């Protein structure tokens, strides 16, 4: 191991990650030195600590019960912190890793530079620690004033130190995950056929699902919460050793605390060692070649044209749909709705009483989730073309045809997502047929609104730059589109959502289920007409002149 070299490589990797989603000289200058991250961490710590200190100051002198409650919360926070850091960071890291275009994911450079795999993996782990250190800074900042108030400063010191160790363990875990993704990708190398693509999608979605459920902080916090102060069978899980160490210290058993702290450090070293070995074994020096089919080329009219679409529209739609299943950076778009549905189902069966409510009220958040996903797909649909948008400019395509194709892709995605969520939620709350149909109609209106607004933004503010982490749309425009989409979805769904609560009063003034749906649909139609015109003029402007 060469520490100087490791630091140098880590600096380059951090710069690459920080700059990959940014443009403009300000961002470049600001992130010129990765050491700036330590400054950011110090600021995060100071803000978090002073905010909590300020809140405690405002509360002033507490009653005995309140003090006891605060001590319990502090103890839980200190024991949970080192155990909850890995899952929080790991979830973020998985999504980050998957958002990296496979074009940029190969590790060519390290193959011809004189760098050992141990040095490279250690540097890569260090770069992950740099990137997510603000989470630790936030945690230890929040808990510091609490620990001072509860006279648990030694426990805070151990918890903070073990949180930093946990950060390194997570960095190494991310390396293992990278190797696993390489393994999945290379497993299909040399194999052919559509099943290869399907397997790749399914396995990737399953990896995301497993990570999101297995490392879900809500689920894990309930596990960790069961042994704050009392050591249970949690000692079987190495990620909980740090929490156990803090618990023993608070319980007045410093030797056991030291033993579990030492075990935590040993476990981290083991994970790092495993990461080096696994990465070395599943190194991916070149992008893999995937053969999508073995059959001979034979042109077909296809299903879409039988629905009345033109050959050009159908071709663009087919291309975009293939992109969803084949582009690594787009796979989260498929995975996220699946994860949401899974989380809802898991929550429904694990948290008692969460299936209360009926009709539109309970499915209301699913409209928002479906709407947000539709907005994301629609706003990124133009930027997904990347530099290959030159094709669209060079081919004899009118802006209207281009817009219609993009519109249909986003609508299809939105409808499938929202329908899946609606069906699951309706089953879970045993919704009536009338309630389901009413929700479905309102869902269609919400999807249409989100698609038109998203396309209006996509055509006006696309980001066609091909970076390691492509953005597809200018970030400010994306945020505005999401806020606007959510607001309009809320307004459209409002009468139907209100209905279950106020039906007994509203029936008296003539507001029936049908009227509630009608109001939502009428509002949706008005929004769609306005947003469609906006999107149409955006498409005409976009295709007027090449912007790459």
């Amino acid at each position, binding site marked *: 191991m060469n520490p100087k070299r490791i630091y140098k490589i880590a600096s380059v990797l951090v710069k690459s990650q920080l700059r990959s989603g940014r443009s403009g000289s300000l961002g470049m200058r600001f992130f010129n030195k990765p050491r700036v991250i330590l400054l950011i961490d110090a600021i995060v710590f100071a803000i978090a600590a002073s905010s909590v200190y300020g809140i405690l100051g405002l509360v002033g002198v507490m009653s005995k019960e309140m003090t006891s409650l605060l001590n319990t919360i502090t103890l839980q926070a200190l024991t949970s912190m080192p155990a909850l850091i890995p899952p929080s960071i790991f979830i973020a890291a998985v999504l980050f890793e998957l958002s990296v275009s*496979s*074009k940029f994911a190969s590790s060519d450079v390290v193959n011809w530079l004189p760098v050992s795999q141990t040095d490279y993996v250690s540097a890569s782990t260090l770069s992950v620690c740099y990137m997510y250190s603000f989470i630790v800074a936030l945690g230890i900042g929040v808990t510091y004033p609490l620990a001072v108030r509860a006279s648990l400063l030694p426990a805070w010191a151990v918890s903070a130190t073990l949180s930093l160790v946990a950060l390194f363990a997570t960095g190494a875990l991310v390396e293992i995950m990278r190797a696993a993704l390489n393994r999945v990708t290379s497993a299909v190398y040399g194999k*052919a056929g559509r099943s290869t693509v399907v397997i790749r999608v399914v396995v990737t979605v399953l990896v995301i699902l497993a990570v999101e459920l297995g490392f879900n902080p809500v689920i894990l916090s309930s596990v960790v919460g069961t042994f704050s102060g009392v050591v249970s069978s949690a000692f079987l899980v190495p990620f909980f050793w740090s929490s156990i160490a803090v618990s023993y210290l608070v319980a007045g058993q410093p030797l056991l605390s030291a033993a579990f702290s030492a075990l935590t450090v040993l476990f981290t070293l083991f994970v790092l060692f495993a990461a080096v070995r696994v990465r070395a074994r599943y190194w991916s020096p070149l*992008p*893999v*070649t*995937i*053969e*999508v*089919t*073995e*059959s001979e*080329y*034979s*042109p*077909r*009219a296809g299903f879409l044209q039988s629905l009345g679409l033109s*050959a*050009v529209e*159908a*071709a663009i739609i*087919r*291309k975009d749909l*293939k*992109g969803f299943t*084949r*582009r690594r950076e787009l796979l989260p778009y498929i995975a996220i709705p699946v994860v949401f549905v899974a989380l809802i189902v898991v929550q429904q069966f694990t948290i008692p009483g969460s299936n209360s409510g009926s009709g539109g009220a309970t499915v209301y958040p699913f409209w928002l989730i479906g709407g947000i996903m539709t907005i994301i797909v629609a706003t990124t649909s133009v930027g997904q073309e990347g*530099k*290959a*948008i*030159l*094709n669209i*400019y*060079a*081919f*004899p*395509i*009118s802006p209207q045809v281009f817009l219609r194709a993009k519109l249909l892709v986003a609508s299809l995605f939105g409808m499938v997502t929202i329908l899946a969520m609606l069906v699951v939620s309706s089953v879970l709350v045993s919704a009536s047929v009338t309630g389901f149909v009413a929700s479905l109609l309102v869902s269609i209106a919400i999807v249409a609104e989100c698609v038109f607004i998203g396309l209006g933004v996509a055509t006006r503010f696309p980001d066609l730059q091909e970076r390691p982490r492509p953005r597809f749309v200018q970030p400010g425009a994306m945020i505005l589109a999401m806020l606007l989409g959510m607001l309009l979805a809320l307004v459209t769904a409002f009468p139907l959502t209100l209905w279950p609560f106020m039906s007994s009063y509203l029936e008296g003034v003539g507001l029936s289920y049908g009227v509630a749906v009608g109001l939502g649909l009428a509002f949706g139609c008005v929004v769609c007409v306005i947003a469609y015109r906006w999107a149409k003029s955006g498409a005409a402007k976009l295709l*007027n*002149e*090449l912007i790459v």
Partner: protein
Amino acid sequence: MQGTQGVDESIALEVETVSKSFGTTHAVDGISLRLRKGEILGLLGPNGSGKSTAMKLILGVIKPDSGAIRVFGKNVAREAVETKQLVGYVPETAQLYEFLSGVEYLDFVADMYSMTSDVRKERITQFLNALEMVGHENQMISGYSQGMKQKIAITAALMHRPRLLILDEALNGLDPRSARIVKDLLRSLAKEGFSILFSTHVLEIAEAICDRVAIMYQGRILAEGTVPELRRQAGLPGSSLEEVFLKITGTSDLRDVVEELSK
């Protein structure tokens, strides 16, 4: 050779005093060109001379600040979709949808030009065979080498039989056999009446396949004509096109540069 609407059918491309600036940079500065039916016009110039911008202007993907461009009598700015139907374009760097396989991309392009099933199958198969892409056609483009991507881009530009071909450094990255096939194909297409605008850095290629040559430098066309005409213009009879090019662009005094580099 007047067409039904008073259009001279023998003129494939007319560029009239076209200019285009990006900020303070004059990428194209008042150029005029004329390409006849069945002719190959070579556009030569050093890097950054404005060749690619000129080609994108002709294709209609960027708009001129001033001047007019007509393809077979159609105004490129006003009849963009109709003009593009007549044109095939190979960009400087192949910009393909890398998540599609080679044959899927070609099928996509065939849809864009409304090619019938029989014709597209025949042409795609012909090109894949000729350019030795058989066996790779079902692989994702992301796994292709630069040369293979270029072969797909060339096939995509040629397979719908465009009346005007715009080739921007089209032979870049091709292996010698494929480059020879493409060169011979271009000559054959020109004989059949197809018009070709061809940019290249490789002067031997220009000399071998172009009927006329235009030399571009700093956004302007400095000289235009057949190779013998250019030799006469440069006052270098019997010299190579390279010497003519260097003299016309004023970049012939290279001795000092070479000496500096070899120190």
